[in-house]
């Protein structure tokens, strides 16, 4: 008899990062190789790189409904978020608007940038949320007033997947004269984005969330928006982001973005089906599982759940040792897991917040992955609960 096959590894952390797609690697290769020029150089090599970079900018622009001059390449989500918030707040405060509005469920890149603006004199205003992770409209109406310089709202939450009605909110914030930024890192490729019909001024995307390499992203900057650069030096990216451009990665970003937009519908349908199977399968086997954000419109790739009587740290370790990758709350510098600020902000009980597991689906997710999780997860939960009961 042959030995039992080792169960395949299951990667359910696509919201953290994704593998670089083959097509993307292929598109990038020449720019690590013969076409290595610096786009700022005026010679043949430079021109070739410049042409590729210009083209990449146009292609990324098309994916967002933007003109090429509205696209600034960045190193990723954190840089895009910081540049948008600090850059536009510093430019706006001269006009006498002092407040920044955001949500308590933003990525740390937003919260950190807003706190920095706070240290520079901004008034920080935090929107009220429903327990499902959606902005409370009354809170939005009362906080977004004529004092607001910047209003930054995450389109799709990275932990629970809840979707904000960003286009409507953007219209209302613009009516009051605020600059609107959205962190669309988890939204891109999942939700149709079109700068021609939607009224955000700034929008952040990050390549490695959809098959481009780490270290490349883009910030959409609507024409006419005031923005102070964070770094100073050359004139690259219209002086808004000086430094020699990462040509190969920009081309990779363009290729990955085009694929993500082209496949958006079919990809989302597939993920929706897989997530429904996963979610229903877990609820069937562990009926008291709490699914976070279940009452909200949710992006199809994120499932965040808590099983009462367990803790995320132990469950994640046990899952990992079975070859299943998922994630917990916010990892701190040391790598230890603290209860998520997102779930805490939504009023989730501390014991449930401390038990939260995020499973995020993507290109690597197959029916077999879901089968494997449904086979392993309930038994790990049962064990964790038995142990918790013993030590209580």
């Amino acid at each position, binding site marked *: 008899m042959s030995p039992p096959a080792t169960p395949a590894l299951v990667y359910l952390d696509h919201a953290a990062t994704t593998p670089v797609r083959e097509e993307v690697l292929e598109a990038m290769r020449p720019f690590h190789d013969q076409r290595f020029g610096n786009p700022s150089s005026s010679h043949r090599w430079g021109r070739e790189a410049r042409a590729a970079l210009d083209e990449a900018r146009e292609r990324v622009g098309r994916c967002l409904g933007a003109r090429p001059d509205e696209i600034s390449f960045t190193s990723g989500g954190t840089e895009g978020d910081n540049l948008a918030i600090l850059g536009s707040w510093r430019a706006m405060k001269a006009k006498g608007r002092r407040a920044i509005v955001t949500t308590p469920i933003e990525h740390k890149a937003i919260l950190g940038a807003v706190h920095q603006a706070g240290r520079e004199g901004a008034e920080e205003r935090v929107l009220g949320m429903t327990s499902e992770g959606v902005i409370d409209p009354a809170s939005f109406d009362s906080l977004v007033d004529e004092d607001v310089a910047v209003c930054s709202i995450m389109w799709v939450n990275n932990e629970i997947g809840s979707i904000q009605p960003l286009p409507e909110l953007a219209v209302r914030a613009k009516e009051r004269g605020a600059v609107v930024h959205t962190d669309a890192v988890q939204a891109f490729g999942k939700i149709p984005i079109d700068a021609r019909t939607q009224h955000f001024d700034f929008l952040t995307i990050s390549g490695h969330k959809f098959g481009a390499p780490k270290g490349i992203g883009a910030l959409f900057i609507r024409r006419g928006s005031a923005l102070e650069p964070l770094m100073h030096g050359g004139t690259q990216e219209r002086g808004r982001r000086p430094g020699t451009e990462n040509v190969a990665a920009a081309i990779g970003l363009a290729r990955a973005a085009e694929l993500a937009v082209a496949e958006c519908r079919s990809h989302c349908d597939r993920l929706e089906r897989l997530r429904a199977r996963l979610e229903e399968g877990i609820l069937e086997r562990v009926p008291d599982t709490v699914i976070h954000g279940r009452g909200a419109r949710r992006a199809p790739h994120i499932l965040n759940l808590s099983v009462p009587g367990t803790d995320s*740290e*132990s*469950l994640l*370790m*046990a899952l*990992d*040792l079975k070859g299943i990758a998922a994630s917990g709350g916010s990892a*701190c*510098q*040391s*790598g*230890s*897991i*603290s209860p998520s600020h997102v779930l805490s902000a939504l009023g989730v009980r501390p014991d449930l917040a401390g038990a939260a597991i995020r499973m995020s689906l993507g290109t690597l997710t197959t029916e077999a992955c879901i089968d494997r999780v449904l086979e392993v997860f309930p038994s790990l939960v049962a*064990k*964790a609960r038995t*142990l918790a009961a013993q*030590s209580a």
Partner: protein
Amino acid sequence: MKGERVLVAMSGGVDSSVAAGILVERGYDVVGATMKLFCHGEDVPDRPCCSLDSVNDARRVCEQLGIPHYVLNLETRFGHDVVDDFVSEYSRGRTPIPCVRCNTFTKFRDFVRKANAIDASWVATGHYARVSNTGLFRGVDENKDQTYFLWGIDREVLSRLILPVGDLDKAATRRRAHVMGLEVIAEKAESQEICFVPDGDYARILEQKLPPDAPALSPGPIVTSGGTVVGEHRGFARYTIGQRRGVPGGFPSPMYVIAIRPGDRAVVIGSRDELLGSGLVARELNWLAPPPAVGTAVSIRVRHRAPLAPAQIVRLDDGAIELALDEPLAAITPGQSLALYDGDRVLGGGVIDKATGRRASLPVLAA
């Protein structure tokens, strides 16, 4: 046994790193974990354990050994079981040993639960002590023996505990680290201080945790055993039995803190003779062997690294043990640990409640 899973507590120091390496060599399915026990905030200075650098060192060692590494957040429980107790003991005029509480509650209870959660049948640490036939024994390296801090652990843990460096001396452990190629940590300095007390200034922790008007940190009298007030102190929690620093001079012989009386906030000082006790009472007992009978002769230790002292059990019930010492010992301190031994074997221990049989104190005349 080969192939069985063991969870190793890794501080990023040489002892636990070599412990993990030895288990990998022995063929165990080794999983490393660093306990995050407290947070000094964003500016984490390099501390012997729990600092970011220590976590990074532990992770680097695990990467080199080819084993998974996790960081376990035990801050809340450690804060409650160890730090709060530390503060409350000082408030009662006692001198606690947080490492004992950490071993009892955190390393050998909370950590063992994490082992259960990942189906690890074994747990291991880098302590210098030995486990054999489900008994706990002193480590081979007499200078490094850590059993004084381990008397409080749950006895049933012993049947699944591995202490791989207990058979080594420190120099040998460092040599093993080099042989394993763990240069990151092979020559790392020893941690001697209390991990959550930055720069050894424990009073600062008390100041942070206690209200400003806490009696333990408020001025009170320094008195002789005869009752003469000879000075004032800035809080009895800044003193421990046997201490000379902060004690007024001008006496014919050196004076020591011989008692702390939280009731009237007094720090009592006396001569070397007055520091001696010929017996002691300890509570919060824990046994790692069948409890010995009254009348049994045992060896005891009332201070880390002190020589073993012969004593006899004169009273023993569920709550307390009383011992008569063959020779008087100096500075038997409430809050410190009593560890009992039969030869190399740790029988158990408790927390010292008071010294007994102090010499009748003689009036001290100011010179």
